[in-house]
């Protein structure tokens, strides 16, 4: 199969017949995964803190330092969450949090060591913004930071915080978050020291189809050089309770009584981002629909010929559309999500059990299998 160029991808994203695209993505999925197995990982999202200085406009999870709802997870609570994960057959924890201004590298290494002393579990933790932030605050290189974390017990890195890897978009939706090149740099360094990571894309905010293609292109380019990405996970912006959603009026679960977003707060960067967002949103912004999601999914499958696995996002799309996604290029169902806080904060809550996941995969016509972080199959159902 010939490699898709950016121009062709853009054409497909903008206008190709969705069923035609689906058939192509489905054929490619079959070629890459001929055994008809759809995998999932049993894990739990543990958000060690919700305090974050980045204040991204699409996020409903963060709290300001000093907010009455701010928290940092205590160790006992952490242990009981891990105990529960293991008792449910879990193999991984996804450890992520906000950028807490008072938590230094020592906190992280201590956290990792404590976990590894007590448990045999894969720690999939700290997305590039967290790592970049630590490096900056401690005057370390990214590589030094990563090595320190790995020595303390970090196994692999989640692909979050990528959002859309276009600085034009990032300046609008997350002006304080690390730039595209920094995100890629963290991933490249991680791959270079032998760590595997995933890559994500959050679309359906203010990006154009061109931005999506650019995102796919930089991921593919890095993967050509390192081969370190295990999977690509596209998902769509969930607007509930977010500043971006509130500005656009699309959030269906807006809590205006919660005045978490003071209208004029923030520095010059944030204010100019807000102005740009408003201009964009007044031109009729709406959240990505199912058809939009499937379209992005198929183009991702077709374009990322060097990434083996594409995840369906049942957390943002629901089980039924996630099943449909398995015929539009996806071959993995992601995590069972024993606990998920971030998307839930945005008003979307599809709670399902492992049985639901297994049955959903089977009902969609595939053989369900539990995998580990590295896509090694552990158990077929």
């Amino acid at each position, binding site marked *: 199969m010939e490699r898709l160029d950016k121009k062709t991808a853009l054409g497909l994203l903008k206008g190709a017949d969705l*069923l035609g695209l689906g058939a192509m993505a489905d054929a490619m999925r079959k070629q890459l995964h001929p055994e008809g197995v759809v995998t999932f990982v049993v894990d739990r999202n543990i958000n060690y803190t919700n305090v974050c200085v980045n204040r991204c406009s699409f996020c409903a999870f963060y709290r300001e330092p000093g907010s009455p709802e701010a928290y940092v997870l205590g160790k006992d609570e952490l242990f009981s969450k891990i105990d529960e994960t293991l008792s449910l057959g879990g193999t991984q924890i996804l450890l992520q949090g906000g950028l807490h201004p008072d938590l230094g590298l020592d906190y992280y290494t201590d956290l990792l060591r404590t976990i590894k002393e007590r448990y045999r579990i894969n720690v999939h933790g700290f997305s590039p913004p967290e790592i970049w932030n630590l490096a900056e605050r401690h005057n370390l290189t990214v590589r030094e930071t990563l090595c320190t974390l790995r020595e303390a017990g970090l196994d692999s890195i989640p692909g979050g915080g990528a959002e859309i890897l276009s600085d034009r978009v990032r300046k609008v939706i997350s002006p304080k978050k690390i730039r595209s090149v920094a995100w890629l740099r963290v991933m490249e360094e991680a791959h270079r020291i032998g760590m595997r990571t995933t890559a994500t894309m959050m679309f359906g905010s203010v990006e154009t189809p061109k931005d999506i293609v650019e995102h796919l292109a930089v991921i593919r380019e890095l993967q050509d050089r390192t081969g370190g990405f295990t999977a690509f996970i596209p998902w769509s912006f969930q607007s509930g309770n977010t500043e971006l959603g509130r500005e656009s009026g699309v959030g269906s679960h807006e809590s205006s009584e919660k005045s978490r977003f003071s209208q004029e707060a923030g520095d010059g960067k944030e204010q100019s981002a807000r102005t740009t967002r408003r201009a964009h949103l007044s031109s009729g912004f709406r959240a990505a629909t199912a058809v939009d999601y499937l379209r992005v999914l198929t183009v991702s499958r077709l374009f990322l010929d060097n990434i083996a696995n594409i995840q369906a996002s049942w957390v943002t799309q629901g089980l039924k*559309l996630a099943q*449909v996604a398995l015929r539009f290029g996806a071959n993995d169902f992601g995590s069972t999500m024993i606990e998920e806080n971030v998307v839930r904060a945005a008003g979307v809550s599809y709670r399902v059990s492992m049985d639901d996941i297994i049955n959903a995969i089977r009902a*969609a016509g595939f053989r369900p299998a539990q995998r580990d972080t590295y896509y090694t199959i552990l158990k077929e159902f």
Partner: protein
Amino acid sequence: MPSSLHEKVLSGERLTREDALALFEGDDFFSLGRLASFVAGMKHGANAYFIVNRHLNPTNICVNRCRFCAFSRSKGEEGAFELTIDEMLTKLSEASQGPHPVREVHIVGGLHPDWPFDLYLHMLEAIKRAYPTVALKAFTAVEIDYLSRISGLAIGDTLQALKERGLDLMPGGGAEIFAPAVREKLCPEKISGQRWLDIMETAHGLGIKTNATMLYGHIESVEDRVDHLMMLRELQDRTAGFQAFIPLAYHPKNTEIGGFYSSGIDDLTTMAVSRLVLDNVDHIKAYWIMLGEKVSQVALLFGADDLDGTIIEEKITRSAGALAGERMTRDEMIHLIGRAGKTPVERDAFYNPVESSKE
């Protein structure tokens, strides 16, 4: 998919029972979608319809206790409710105002043990008087059968009386699955499939248009589904009274049957096969309250041409673990249809385009 099937559809030849089974059992998901899309396109071009409507459930008290239903209650049971006619009118008042008023009220409720037939006549009359331009889509065949029993009137006379007081058309509920063995397990107290068809035939004969449904994804077989579609098609050949067919995905929560939700793949497959088999039914509806907004939108690419309506308040699906919200705005429906590459057309209860829909 055998190429003969392909050619049959393209040339407009009618599919057989065996063809329909082959479509269900095949794995040619995208060809199936394309074929169904082709047929929908021949009938409706790029149009996809929606309606500004409202549901009204007068009561959830029901003498039938179907195993798949999480809505019904016995009289006196916790959660049982019965609305007065005034309460019904109040519920409708909000929805009948503004630039995009409701065009249709969809009334469906339980079989109340004490309500007299007169109450139903008064209900229709009162609503029609208050909202003369709103179409009243009311009473499934199951309710009609019950009303005929409590009134002592024949089915035809029952329907005629209701029609005279304002009944405009009938929903297609209560069909479930016609296969007697499945029906016996699913809803033993409910009228038989044949009785359902007979009542619809009588309604069609009186000039009352109806919908038709099929509840799938529980304990039925693929053969049961195909037979169900065949029986509908046969009746439609004689009466042409079905406006739309609505495949209803089973919801397992809080029901006696339990089990799982049907898969999104099955939902789209069933939609497409229905479009292909029911060549004599104009519209195939992706009922978003049952399928969820997301799968419904994708169904517009698998042969469906209608998303139903804004609904506003829905209790039956909700009781059994609805995957969708309770209402959708007119703007949201327009957006969903547009993003699927279709032309949104606001319709009235009879599929006439509403003037304001082309904006």
